[in-house]
């Protein structure tokens, strides 16, 4: 390849690369959304129907992913599990995002005592092992998905608060803020209508990669028996149920785990692609 062509390719490649990554990720997510929406039509069996004659069957034509110790079809359970795990990934990020962004914006904008107090709280929460804090809060509230969401909201906001605060601290010295203030706009209007939209990009990219952490966290919590309760089909529980059968039925933990991996991969691709694309646009 001649030198100018190589240079041209180098210049264009990163922009395309970001888009390809983004579209691949979105395709994976779309696949799982369709799976969740049309689960009743796609799944070949009832996810909680126990077929006593078909226990622990290896993957084959009748059951592509095999069956579990109750004779339930693992493929159908993985498909139905999409509904629960997709919900965990989305809801588990929205609450911390909204709370953290609000607190971070207010703290960064006003500074002083408000800022100092919130940032010390952030320090304390960050000094704790993330999962341990979540487990402790769920122990207080009782096992279940609702407790998991509340625990996430109480713990997860700190990262978002930190991110947005750092942005606001830089942006609030900009001329457009001075202009808005001289026009007599209220603090609330300046914070949420002028500063926030300019500061949000980094948080949105982070929220996409945070989805992966939340998804893994939710599955871990269910794995420990603190999240989704049986017989609901959820990937983390399914892996946990397979733990006792690793010597006899490798397919029991393997396929639900692969589903977690695939969905996480989709979210990671979207995060990477979005990040690269926004970087390229600057």
């Amino acid at each position, binding site marked *: 390849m001649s030198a100018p062509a190589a240079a041209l390719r180098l210049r264009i490649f990163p922009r395309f690369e970001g888009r390809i990554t983004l579209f691949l990720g979105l395709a994976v997510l779309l696949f799982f959304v369709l799976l969740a929406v049309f689960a009743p039509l796609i799944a070949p069996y009832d996810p909680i129907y126990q077929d006593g004659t078909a226990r622990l069957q290896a993957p084959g034509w009748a059951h592509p992913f095999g069956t579990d110790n109750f004779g339930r079809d693992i493929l159908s359970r993985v498909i139905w599990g999409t509904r629960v795990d997709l919900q965990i990934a989305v809801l588990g990020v929205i609450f911390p995002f909204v709370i953290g962004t609000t607190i971070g914006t207010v703290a960064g904008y006003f500074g002083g005592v408000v800022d100092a107090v919130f940032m010390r709280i952030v320090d304390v929460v960050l*000094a704790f*092992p*993330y999962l341990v804090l979540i487990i402790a809060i769920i*122990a207080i509230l009782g096992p279940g998905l609702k407790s998991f969401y509340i625990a996430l909201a109480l713990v997860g906001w700190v990262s978002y608060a930190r991110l947005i605060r750092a942005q606001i601290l830089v942006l609030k010295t900009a001329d457009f803020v001075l202009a808005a203030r001289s026009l007599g706009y209220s603090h609330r209007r300046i914070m949420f209508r002028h500063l926030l939209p300019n500061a949000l990009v980094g948080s949105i990219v982070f929220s996409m*990669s945070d989805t992966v952490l939340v998804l893994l966290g939710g599955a871990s919590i269910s*794995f420990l028996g603190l999240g989704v309760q049986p017989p609901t089909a959820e990937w983390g529980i399914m892996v946990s149920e397979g733990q006792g059968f690793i010597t006899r039925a490798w397919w029991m933990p393997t396929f639900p*785990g692969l589903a977690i991996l695939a969905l*996480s991969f989709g979210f990671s691709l979207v995060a990477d692609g979005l990040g690269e694309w926004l970087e390229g646009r600057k």
Partner: protein
Amino acid sequence: MHRYRFVLFRPLQFLPVIFGISVLTFVLVRLIPGDPARMLLGTRATASAIEKVRAQYGLDEPIWLQYFYFIKNLAQGEMGRSIVYKTDVLKLIATRIEPTLVLVLGSVLLALLIAVPMATLASRRRGTMADQGVRVVSTLGLGMPSFWIALMLMIVFSVNLDWFPVSGYGRSVSDKAVHMVLPCLTVALSLSAILTRSLRASLIAQINSDQATAARARGLPEGAVFWRHVMPNALIPTLNLLAVNIGWLIGGTVIVESVFAIPGMGQLLVRGIFSRDYMVVQAVAMTFAVATVLVNFLADILTVAADPRVKL
């Protein structure tokens, strides 16, 4: 030497954080429903027996007074007695700290052994198939739940190949080492994904930096430029990332210890939460939190030592 002055003053900033941690732990553990005395004695215990146990562990005092005693004991180097194990909490931790320490250090070492070659390959052959391969592998690594990696490793290496034991910890040093291979590998696989991505990005930035160009201009071969100038500078942000992730790492050991049935601190903590063993939960959570703060402090010192421009 004034660049190192923060080593003296930074610990003062830890005090409010550690105070906050102690309050948070104390309040959280007491919010967990269930009475430790009743948990201990069972459902058929008489009211007077429960009263006696409550008095013995100071559980009948008002909560602020309990906190005061907790801090007072802490100042004297005591963490109280475990209600379930009936021993001094610090002694209990001393017997449990080794497996967790081995797990954390072993997996960090293993993760670096995986991440450094991968990131080196990706950054030196940027844009090639090798780079794309490293990217895909590390992105997949990010999405693997640790408990699932653990089970997959068990199926392959314990059940089918019979190389390593399925779970447990062992007694002799060599026995322990054999038991810890799979747990360390489990954590290292997730951790190396994070480290590889970060290291690749900072290596690429450093390869194109002015100081690397200057080294090349002095006639240094590319290999020397890379290992003497690029790699040391690129490792600093990655080691900092490792320090920031130490809390995540410790949380991960809780899961891995539970899957592999390793008698470590994480297992002690989770069991403590479920048996309402207040003193154990407080002590373990405090130890974890203080360790997190200290590791971040060490990372700061390391950064200052490695980079003369940094002032903290």
